[in-house]
């Protein structure tokens, strides 16, 4: 397996422009002869499908929800970054680039990040023109806020529903192309495998989730924008349907999986309330702009928050990070919360929580101002917990939220499989070991609106692609394998539900490959996961038929893939014997508990090659060069 990142030469600010000029073009009249398969209709998939169709390609788009508008991107709350510098506060493309490389703890590719920062400005223009109702100032201009620890205000937002509004924008563009007959949309359709012909990605096999029909789709290129895999932890902030299946199937066919262990644990989520819990709800990070985080100084203090006097509270983030305070980056804020709970200072019935307190902000700005800013979030909190955050502090705890890892892609967003392009959260490209707040929406839309439309043309123009069709043997063989897996799942008829396996896997991953990882714990997980996988294949109970709408069967297929993928995550975490960003190895920390990177040995992307289920995957390294940003210890003190 060869990892050629195809980073263009030249000064960083010119790379993308010169690359675009060097890319081959396809004559407008010829574009419609090319079929492009887009899997996913989130920000990345919908923007790609719409834009490719506008250019003239013949596009098919797939999602498992009943409508493309319901992709998980819809849930993003806080905002989207762009280096517009509308606030005149010193932002620039270079600063956004710099912040993103530093925030990613120097584990991302400079060239990709620079391009992302450049494109960020076009995204806002595009979205505003589509009618995305961004927040405005009284003069009619766009408003911004500072988000996720940035020292400039570069985040554009639409109340607490930025993802929803951006996705509805992309969905409207996609709908326009569906109406024009340029995109054929397949909702409630799940990709279950990738079809390779002559070593290239040439199609997919899908299951119609309503009728159970297995079908093949052939094309000249495949674009996967299938999102992240935080649900490997069972409990996460992600939507219930998020999964790793498309990525994993492609990985099994030869696509390298990069940095699978880089997971972001978000510090501000509502704590678990009981065993029935099916998912965790994120409280937007923007709350940290006004809320103060604290725990009682005394261990096991059971007094109500209001009865704990000021001098008996530990505002630990303000204490530890005086210049960033409550806005310290996500990974730090999460780990410090865990530390406090480990010390016995956690709050709430389970002791797994810290306070996020708005009383000072309400005293300063008035309840009305706070309500205007965060009213919807306060209401949501009350709905879920039955507690009123205007009267008592919120309780929060970290939860898995975003996966920086994903399929390895080159500068053109193509995986190690020719013709398979990967966009959005599904790829690994831009966030290194830790993603900054409001940067995922930016990346998904950058990939879909402004990168893939250029780079896919170059691939199609350069490659000799023979005609293929679903009746070819490669398609029929792949379909057969998909059917066999389904039949096997249905025939086990064991005693345990799919969910019970998913929960157990989630617990293993949270305990051993979660916020803090150790050599010992990871090795333990590598014993437990195969055992659980064996039990799954002998004892899972999936009722009903394959030729019908069958939600247990859908879940079973996804959990089966998680049970293979989880091992890869642990291998990756085990071999990366350093701490960086979202990957924290307890053996590698400074005296005061901060992550200790090892640039000498680990300044690389770990790209893994599949070698068979249960067999140790093969590691390939892409070295990261830092020519523009000086490697430094990330300090937020």
């Amino acid at each position, binding site marked *: 397996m060869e990892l050629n990142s195809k980073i263009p030469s030249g000064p960083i600010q010119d790379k993308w422009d010169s690359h675009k000029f060097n890319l081959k073009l396809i004559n407008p009249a010829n574009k419609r002869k090319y079929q492009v398969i887009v899997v996913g209709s989130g920000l990345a998939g919908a*923007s790609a499908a*719409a*834009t490719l169709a506008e250019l003239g390609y013949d596009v098919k788009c797939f999602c498992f*929800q*009943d*409508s493309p*508008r*319901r992709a*998980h991107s*819809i*849930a993003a709350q806080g905002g989207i970054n762009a280096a*517009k510098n*509308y606030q005149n506060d010193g932002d620039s493309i270079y600063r956004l680039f710099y912040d993103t490389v530093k925030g990613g703890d120097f584990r991302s590719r400079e060239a990709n990040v620079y391009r992302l920062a450049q494109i960020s400005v076009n995204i806002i*223009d*595009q*979205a*505003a*023109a*589509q*009618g995305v*109702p*961004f927040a*405005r100032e009284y003069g009619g201009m*766009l408003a911004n806020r500072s988000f996720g620890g940035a020292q400039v205000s570069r985040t554009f937002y*639409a109340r607490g529903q930025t993802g*929803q*509004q951006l996705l*509805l924008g992309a969905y*409207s*563009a996609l*709908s*326009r192309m*569906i*109406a024009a007959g340029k995109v054929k*949309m397949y*909702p409630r359709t799940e990709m279950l495998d990738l079809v390779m012909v002559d070593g290239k990605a040439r199609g997919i096999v899908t299951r119609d989730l*309503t009728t159970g029909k297995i079908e093949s789709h052939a094309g000249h290129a495949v674009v996967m924008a299938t999102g992240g895999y935080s649900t490997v932890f069972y409990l996460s902030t992600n*939507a*219930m349907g998020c999964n790793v299946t498309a990525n994993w199937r492609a990985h099994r066919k030869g696509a390298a999986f990069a940095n699978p262990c880089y997971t972001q644990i978000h510090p501000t989520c509502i704590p678990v*309330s*009981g065993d*029935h*819990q*099916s*998912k965790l*709800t*994120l409280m937007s990070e923007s709350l940290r702009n006004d809320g103060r985080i604290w725990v009682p100084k005394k261990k096991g203090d059971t007094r109500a928050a209001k009865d704990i006097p000021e001098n008996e509270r530990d505002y630990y983030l303000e204490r530890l990070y005086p210049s960033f305070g409550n806005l310290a980056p996500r990974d730090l804020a999460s780990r410090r919360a865990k530390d406090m709970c480990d010390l016995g200072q956690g709050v709430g019935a389970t002791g797994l929580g810290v306070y996020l307190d708005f009383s000072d902000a309400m005293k300063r700005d008035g309840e009305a101002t706070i309500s205007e800013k965060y009213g919807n979030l306060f*209401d*949501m909190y009350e*709905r*879920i917990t*039955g507690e009123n955050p205007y009267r008592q502090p919120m309780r929060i705890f970290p939860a898995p939220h975003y996966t920086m890892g994903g399929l390895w892609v080159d500068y053109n967003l193509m995986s190690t499989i020719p013709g398979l392009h990967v966009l959005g959260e599904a790829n690994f490209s831009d966030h290194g070991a830790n993603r900054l707040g409001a940067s995922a929406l930016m990346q998904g839309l950058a990939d879909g609106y402004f990168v893939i439309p250029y780079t896919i043309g170059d691939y199609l123009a350069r490659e000799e692609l023979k005609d293929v069709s679903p009746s070819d043997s490669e398609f029929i063989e792949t379909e057969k394998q998909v059917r066999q897996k389904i039949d096997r799942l249905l025939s086990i008829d064991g005693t345990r*539900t799919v*969910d*019970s396996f998913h929960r157990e896997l989630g617990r293993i991953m949270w305990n051993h490959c979660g916020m803090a990882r150790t050599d010992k714990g990871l090795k333990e997980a590598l014993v437990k996961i195969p055992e659980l996988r064996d039990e799954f294949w002998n004892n899972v*109970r999936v*009722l009903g038929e394959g030729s*019908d*709408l069958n*939600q247990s069967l859908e879940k079973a297929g996804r959990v089966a893939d998680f049970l293979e993928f989880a091992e890869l995550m642990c291998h990756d975490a085990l071999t990366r014997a350093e701490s960086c960003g979202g990957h924290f190895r307890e053996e590698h920390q400074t005296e005061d508990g901060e992550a200790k990177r090892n640039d000498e040995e680990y300044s690389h992307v770990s790209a893994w090659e599949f070698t068979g289920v249960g067999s140790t995957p093969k590691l390939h390294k892409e070295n990261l060069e830092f020519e523009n940003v000086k490697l430094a210890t990330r300090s937020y003190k």
Partner: protein
Amino acid sequence: MKLTLHVWRQKSTSQKGAFETHVMDSVSPDMSFLEMLDELNQALITNGKEPVAFDHDCREGICGSCGVVINGRPHGPQRATTACQLHMRSYQDGQEIWVEPWRASAFPVVKDLMVDRTSFDRIIQSGGFISVRTGSAPDANEIPVPKVDADKAFDAAACIGCGACVAACPNASAMLFTAAKVSHMGLLPQGQPEREQRVLSMVSTMDEEGFGSCTNHKECQEACPKEISIDYISRMNRDYVCASKNKG
């Protein structure tokens, strides 16, 4: 808590459905309504019975996937709350709960509590967009939008497309859904060039899809988890009349 649950079971669109009764012995008040259904499903599978099919994804009240009628009310009793955000502390020990799918001929039942809402997508496809090719947009601040207009547009754009408005309406009308999109775009300067064409096509698609007409019951506004106001319906009606006149 102990609850008696009557759940609608229907194998497919063409088959007839019926209520099935289950007694749940230990429901926690901290569970969401969907988590209560998860528990029911775990028990059903353990007893060799097929679980109840229902749509859901985000479980945060934003994707619009979930949607069931609970004791006659879409999304249940709590104002401005989707079924996934409704918590069992809204119910009392010993209560009986009836759960059924949206009922509307434009939303055929797919299975159990799941319905086919692709008619909503087709309404959007007929005009719920601003035609702007990727790359052709001017600088975002070149189109100033007064804050009041932006806020009003946002209130309409908050629609999650769940279909509760249709389920609540005695005529199964999709006026609130359609009006929300027409108004979101019609209130913004970017939406002006296509404003008349948009309202004409979307209303006509809405009719073709078999949604009923609006006779002012206001049930849609009551049921809407995003509290979208029926004022947008009046606004759409005015736009429609105006556009029809201009078209002649």
